[in-house]
């Protein structure tokens, strides 16, 4: 038998608190980021999976080669941020729908933590990335690396 | 429980019956007690209009067996009349005349004047409350034509009906409910009023409380009130074929009847010619206005025979009678030869889709008949009770021709003011519920401001408790459904548009036997929560009572007038019957001869300006 809580325990309209309206901005963000992500993700997938011989072509050298160009760096940073926040906010919606009480809080914290963690991690990786790490064998790194020009 | 009377004046004598003293909300011996200045029974158009007046001015409660928005006011389509003159010249005096003439002069003309005059404010009230009327190009309320509404005493049709698409009743019901929400009106939803408590005060019966049954829990509630307003709607369910809802079982009228108070003009019931056969769902008169034709089984346009000149556009009562006659004489269509056909096929798809979309949808949905290509099975459908609880123009209930029952009011279809006389004009009922609903609310508050509470006897709930427990424990063999079906079928056969002394005698007999069988009824649901089995049995009790009054009053009126068509007395007889019927319950309803427990009296018709004339259009 269905049992449900009393609907929306005492209602306080958004105006009463005048905080940032997360629901509205979240909603707008999902759409704005969605549009951008279409371009970013399909571009990414196209280049990585479709050009050349698909995923087989991917290795350190490929990635490093891409990230040598600021264009792809910006592209991937943008994609990282937009997608993780988009996905994180989407997960928040899903969790709010199905989880209640303690479980909800735990899950939301987990999602938030992983989103923030991965954004920080990913951004660091991208900004501090060195395409020609010292000591790496020439066959693993891009052809423009000093190892290979010898 | 205290034996003291709350009324200070009656302290002297200890021999008075025992009265109850309680706080609002008290529960004594399992019965809940409430106290309000005004209690309104019914939350249809009339009840909620009254509540909007009473709510802000007095401590008001509304008891309703349905959620307010489920009330049958929402089914009305056509419109609500008022001489606004927004689109063409009009005035309320013409409207009064049309109402009187439409009612075949059995209308109380003082009441009709009020109806027509206050109609204008009633419409503006609704508009100001938010009702989304259709608009003219100037942004004013639009108006359209309707049967019987004319300019200058019958010279030409006039555009008087204010409307909101073909959902006027729906909009009225919603708008009134919205305003009740706004005012915080106190609703007791799904509470069935089953009795009114009368307390003897100085030798006179005075209403002191309403006793109600709470559907969700099966508990009994006593609502003490200074003013009580009945607005419980009609009782079309005494018939099988009706445009009325399943819940229109006339409980309020029945409660009043059982108290020995009179009922007025019960023989007058309006039958609308074109209800979907077997279902009774209404198909607007507009179909015939557009040129649709009635045909019998052999395809004959039978109205040519009865009314050679105006044929299918003859008045409602005449057409209804002819249709029944065709069927009675074996010319009905269908496998059981029990209906005639409304042929719209020659109108073409476009007219149907644009001008008659609703009936087109109804026919398609409910009969699977597409009016574009096939004729639609129709039969007259019991539509509106002109009679009911007699009131004066202040909506006060009368205990005889002119004595007011202090603190008791009635409005809407359950009441008889009488503004409809023997035949109601289209669009005048939505008007009635607004004008007299408002009046009832105001006069009830006015009375409650000065009146004292009438004490409630200790045994106030015992009648309802007995009724409920007896039925719940009943393990008879008769099914409610079967009894009700027989009543409705017999009423359709014998007391419908076409009545004779013989047919009425026959159905009287049926009702008597059914009453006997009703004692042996089987209630399968023994539970307390949402026991609709039990309540249907109680409702059937009211239907039996009211059907009997309708039939008995009809038998007694040996003339034909408006909605009452006697084949054995086919003409109007002003010399003998230019008066209202007043029926009283005076004995045990189980007695074999109805005249042993019903007595009839007459009440004069109030005539101000218009002397009776022959009614022709």
């Amino acid at each position, binding site marked *: 038998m269905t049992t449900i809580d009393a609907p929306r325990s005492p209602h306080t309209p958004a105006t009463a608190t005048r905080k940032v309206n997360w629901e509205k901005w979240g909603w707008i963000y999902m759409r704005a980021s969605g549009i951008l992500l279409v371009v970013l993700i399909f571009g990414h997938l196209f280049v990585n999976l479709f050009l050349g011989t698909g995923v087989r072509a991917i*290795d350190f050298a490929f990635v490093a080669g891409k990230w040598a160009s600021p264009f792809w760096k910006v592209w991937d940073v943008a994609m990282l941020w937009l*997608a993780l926040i988009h996905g994180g906010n989407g997960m928040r919606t899903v969790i709010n729908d199905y989880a209640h009480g303690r479980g909800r809080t735990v899950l939301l914290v987990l999602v938030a933590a992983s989103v923030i963690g991965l954004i920080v991690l990913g951004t660091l990786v991208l900004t501090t990335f060195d395409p020609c790490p010292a000591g*790496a064998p020439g066959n693993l790194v891009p052809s423009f690396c000093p190892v290979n020009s010898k | 429980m205290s034996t003291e009377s709350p009324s200070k004046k009656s302290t002297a004598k200890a021999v008075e019956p025992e009265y109850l003293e309680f706080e609002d909300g008290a529960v004594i011996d399992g019965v809940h007690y409430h106290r309000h200045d005004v209690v309104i029974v019914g939350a249809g158009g009339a009840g909620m209009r009254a509540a909007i007046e009473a709510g802000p001015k007095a401590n008001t409660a509304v008891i309703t067996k349905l959620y307010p928005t489920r009330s049958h006011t929402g089914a009305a389509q056509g419109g609500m009349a008022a001489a606004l003159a927004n689109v063409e010249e009009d005035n309320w005096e013409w409207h009064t005349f049309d109402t009187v003439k439409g009612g075949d002069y059995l209308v109380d003309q003082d009441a009709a004047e009020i109806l027509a005059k206050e109609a204008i404010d009633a419409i503006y009230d609704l508009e100001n409350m938010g009702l989304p009327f259709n608009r003219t190009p100037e942004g004013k309320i639009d108006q359209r034509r309707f049967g019987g509404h004319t300019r200058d005493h019958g010279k030409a049709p006039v555009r008087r009906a204010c409307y909101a698409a073909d959902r006027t009743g729906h909009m009225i019901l919603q708008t009134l409910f919205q305003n009740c929400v706004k005012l915080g009106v106190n609703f007791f939803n799904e509470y069935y009023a089953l009795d009114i408590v009368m307390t003897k005060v100085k030798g006179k019966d005075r209403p002191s409380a309403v006793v109600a049954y709470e559907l969700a829990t099966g508990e009994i509630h006593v609502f003490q009130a200074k003013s009580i307003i009945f607005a419980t709607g009609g009782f079309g369910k005494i018939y099988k074929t009706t445009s009325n809802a399943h819940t229109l079982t006339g409980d309020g009228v029945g409660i009043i009847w059982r108290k020995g108070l009179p009922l007025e003009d019960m023989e007058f019931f309006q039958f609308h010619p074109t209800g979907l056969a077997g279902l009774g769902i209404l198909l607007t008169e507009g179909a015939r206005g557009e040129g649709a034709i009635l045909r019998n089984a052999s395809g004959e346009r039978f109205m040519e025979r009865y009314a050679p000149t105006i044929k299918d556009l003859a008045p409602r009562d005449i057409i209804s009678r002819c249709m029944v006659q065709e069927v009675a004489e074996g010319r009905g269509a269908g496998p059981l030869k029990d209906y005639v056909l409304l042929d719209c096929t020659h109108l073409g798809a476009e007219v149907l889709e644009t001008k008659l979309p609703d009936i087109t949808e109804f026919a398609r949905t409910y009969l699977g008949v597409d009016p574009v290509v096939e004729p639609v099975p129709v039969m007259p459908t019991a539509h509106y009770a002109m009679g009911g609880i007699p009131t004066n123009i202040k909506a006060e209930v009368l205990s005889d021709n002119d004595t007011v029952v202090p603190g008791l009011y009635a409005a809407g279809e359950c009441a008889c003011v009488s503004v409809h006389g023997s035949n109601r004009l289209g669009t005048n009922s939505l008007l009635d519920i607004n004008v007299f609903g408002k009046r009832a609310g105001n006069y009830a508050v006015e009375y409650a401001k000065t009146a004292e509470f009438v004490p409630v006897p200790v045994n106030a709930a015992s009648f309802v408790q007995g009724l409920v427990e007896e039925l719940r424990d009943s393990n008879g063999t008769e099914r409610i459904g079967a009894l009700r079906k027989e009543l409705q079928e017999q009423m359709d056969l014998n007391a419908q548009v076409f009545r004779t002394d013989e047919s009425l005698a026959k159905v009287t007999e049926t009702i008597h036997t059914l009453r006997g069988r009703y004692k042996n009824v089987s209630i399968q649901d023994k539970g307390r929560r949402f026991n609709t089995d039990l309540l249907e049995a109680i409702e059937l009790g009211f239907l039996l009572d009211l059907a009997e009054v309708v039939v008995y009053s009809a038998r007694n009126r040996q003339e034909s007038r408006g909605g009452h068509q006697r084949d054995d007395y086919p003409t109007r007889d002003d010399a003998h019957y230019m008066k209202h019927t007043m029926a009283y319950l005076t004995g045990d309803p189980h007695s074999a001869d109805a005249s042993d427990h019903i007595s009839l009296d007459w009440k004069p018709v109030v005539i101000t300006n218009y002397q009776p004339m022959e009614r022709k259009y």
Partner: protein
Amino acid sequence: MWSWVLHRITGVAIFFFLLVHVLDTSLVRITPEGYNAVINTYKTPILGLGELALVAAIGFHALNGIRIILIDFWSVGTRHQKLLFWIVIALWIVLLAGFAPRQIINIIAEMS
């Protein structure tokens, strides 16, 4: 209803993939060898199929996301939501028809 169910499922699935994907990509910062080792597992047939599913999921989520945006901002979007849904399905099939054969050939090539 079903468009929404799919949108939700694909959204959640992509989210989890993204978590893993960011982590594995981060390995590039540590050692090229490590990265290549992980990326090589992507090249097994099983994960090849997984990748196909991922593209299918992203494809649907993205196309339906555009549909939702059209419903929200195009004044007659709600009226055409069913048609839009079928267009989404059609485009999605086209997308997969373009991608799947190549991917399957790649998978087979990897196996041999």
